[in-house]
């Protein structure tokens, strides 16, 4: 069996699993899996670019995904003009002062001679800068958060179409990645891992606490959609007529219509990114990346600027994760900073890439769809399994505990899948050529 046939079969199996969900559970469930699977595939492409192409160990995926989500809010929500009037200038001034402090510290660090004097001056700049920044920012923040806290209490967005947020989410993530890469790249791989893990947690902490920016844990709900609302479709006589023509009731038809619409949008983005990633992989640039990954010293000896290439690929991969994050927030229609968890948004994506086959774009997409399917379906399967196991037992605390615990089977299963793949098929389902 040659490779193409095998790979097509693998994709067909995953497609079949999703179809099976449609037949056995509901088409809504199947489309939900498909949509999140497509988004996960984009995240996996981003991680594959960093790890598969270049061997960069980034476990801060969650942070970039969350930044993409923030972009969806900042682009599409209507601006809160009162809040802008109350503290908009203060916020902008404060942020500029903060940035100026950091820039001044970096420039001083570069220009001054090393020694005790430099340390003292740097400390003075940072400390004074911090207090000035807080003094300017804090009153504005308080003023903004006082503006109708139940519904707004934040600056709001630009009120632009939400699809624009996707590329902007990518840009936002890319900007953050550039800053992080400038400082943390060049560290040893496990240090880079810890650094990115930390940054992701900090980004989430900022989203949770800076209410003026993202409403924090109060969440931003009702993000505008690129597609019509189900209720509007149901009230549209033309749509109801067409649904009836297909023999479906309008409620069902409208939910499926919207989900399918998302699936088409996501698929377009995925295909475009996939095409770019494939082009990159087979270009001289891609070969150079792999050369750097396989032997940094040799690549450097050939005159390749390893640090700059690393920075480049780190920014690109993070941007893709940011795009996926913006898409996900669009799909959810809300930004809930409390829901970002590293196990789900960082480590699960890693499982996808490794199971699919790191270094192979098709592998990453396949791994993402498969693992996402498992992630969703392991829970009902676990419940079913435990019901089977416990069916002979008498009712009691132990039995109900087992049944309640079924939900936690998914973490266990993901770990098991990861370890088994690493042990018995370390190159993944579709290995790198």
């Amino acid at each position, binding site marked *: 069996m040659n490779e193409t046939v095998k790979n097509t079969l693998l994709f067909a199996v995953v497609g079949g699993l999703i179809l099976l969900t449609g037949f056995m559970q509901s088409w809504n469930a199947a489309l939900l899996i498909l949509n999140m699977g497509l988004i996960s595939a984009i995240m996996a492409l981003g991680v594959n670019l960093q790890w598969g192409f270049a061997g960069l160990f980034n476990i801060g995926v969650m942070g970039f995904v969350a930044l993409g989500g923030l972009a969806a809010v900042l682009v599409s929500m209507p601006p809160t003009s009162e809040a802008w009037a109350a503290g908009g200038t203060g916020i902008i001034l404060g942020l500029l002062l903060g940035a100026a402090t950091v820039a001044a510290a970096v420039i001083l660090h570069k220009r001054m001679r090393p020694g005790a004097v430099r340390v003292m001056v740097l400390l003075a700049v940072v400390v004074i800068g911090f207090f000035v920044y807080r003094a300017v920012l804090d009153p504005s923040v308080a003023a903004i958060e006082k503006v109708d806290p139940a519904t707004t209490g934040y600056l709001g967005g630009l009120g632009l179409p939400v699809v624009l947020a996707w590329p902007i989410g990518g840009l936002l993530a890319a900007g953050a990645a550039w800053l992080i890469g400038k400082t*943390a790249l060049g*560290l040893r791989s496990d240090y880079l*891992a810890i650094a990115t893990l930390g940054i992701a947690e900090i980004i989430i902490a900022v989203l949770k606490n800076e209410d003026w920016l993202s409403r924090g844990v109060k969440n931003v709900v009702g993000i505008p959609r690129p597609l019509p609302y189900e209720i509007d479709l149901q009230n549209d006589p033309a749509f109801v007529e067409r649904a009836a023509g297909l023999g479906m009731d309008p409620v069902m038809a409208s939910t499926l219509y919207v989900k399918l619409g998302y699936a088409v949008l996501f698929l377009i983005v995925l295909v475009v990114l996939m095409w770019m990633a494939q082009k990159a992989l087979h270009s001289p640039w891609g070969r150079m990346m792999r050369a750097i990954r396989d032997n940094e010293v040799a690549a450097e000896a050939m005159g390749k600027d390893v640090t700059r290439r690393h920075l480049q690929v780190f920014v690109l991969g993070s941007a893709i994760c940011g795009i996926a994050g913006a898409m996900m927030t669009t799909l959810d229609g809300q930004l809930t900073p409390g829901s970002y968890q590293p196990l789900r948004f960082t480590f699960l994506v890693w499982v996808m890439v490794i199971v699919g086959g790191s270094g192979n774009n098709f592998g990453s997409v396949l791994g993402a769809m498969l693992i996402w399917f498992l992630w969703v379906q392991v829970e009902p399967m676990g419940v079913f399994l435990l019901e089977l196991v416990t069916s002979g037992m008498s009712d009691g605390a132990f039995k109900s505990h087992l049944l309640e615990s079924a939900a936690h089977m998914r973490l266990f299963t993901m770990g098991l899948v990861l370890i088994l793949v690493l042990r018995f098929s370390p190159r993944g389902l579709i290995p790198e050529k």
Partner: protein
Amino acid sequence: MDFLNAIVALTNYVVIPAMSYGSQLALGALGVTLVYGILRFSNFAHGDTMAFGAMVTILVTWLMQSVGINLGPLPTALLALPFGILGCVALVLVTDRLVYRFYREQKAKPVILVIVSMGVMFIMNGLVRFIIGPDDQRFSDGARFIISARDFKSMTGLNEGLAIKTSQGLTVVTAVVVVAVLFWFLNRTRTGKSMRAYSDNEDLALLSGINPERVVVYTWLIVAALATVAGVLYGLDKSFKPFTYFQLLLPIFASAIVGGLGSPLGAIAGGFIIAFSEVTITYAWKKVAVYLLPERFEPDGLVQLLSTDYKLAVSFVILLIVLLFRPTGIFRGKAL
């Protein structure tokens, strides 16, 4: 008098919490550093190993509480601790046999082992949630305070109270004992010396007849014990919740790296540096300032540098500064 009050307030809100948190971090970081020194990879499953050890201890504690065994003023968990350590030892030894040994024999790259440890992290996390559930669990009993704030006030006549929780006192004492035993073991016993030799230079250690598998087993024994002690102390002091143990990973790694990965002394120093900076930077200094400053200068705000939710950011920034300016850490890590 004001000055004394300020000192008491500072001790109560900053020094004591930071001391106990620092001891917990130090114990955790020691485990990470030992794995790094001997097995040569960053163990991402360490937080969940701590959670597993603590979980076994909690289960045994509940069992003991239900049959009426207790330690009087001390928490019952101390009695259950050896069982927790045994459970944790069993878990890590099985994990090593089934998972890590294969890669050791293959001489796999450290980064592969890190990814493998991510898988182990998932499994352990799943196990813990499966057995005890994802919720908060309380298991401390015995006396709550060594000195309560009210007693302290009536004793000294100061305005400010000083409270020392049993768990805090216990944490510091246990940490001192554990660290002393560990250093005695590493420096004085044959096995400890062979571990240091193996960490220092694998080839030379092999040449002089040290059995690497034995060294690895001993390392896991110590790591499991340290992780369980750290996990139980943290659980007694705050509360047990599987997810918080996963989140401890960052400050623990920060402590180990700041001190110098592979250096036990560094791990302890790192733990206290991280803990003290976290607490001092997120503490609202108003109370202390009110006592020390003349009335005219009294601050209006809380005088808090960062809100407590940014604790993680503090350990992270320290980590980053150390990585950028002194990548080997304060104590020049790498070898035990």
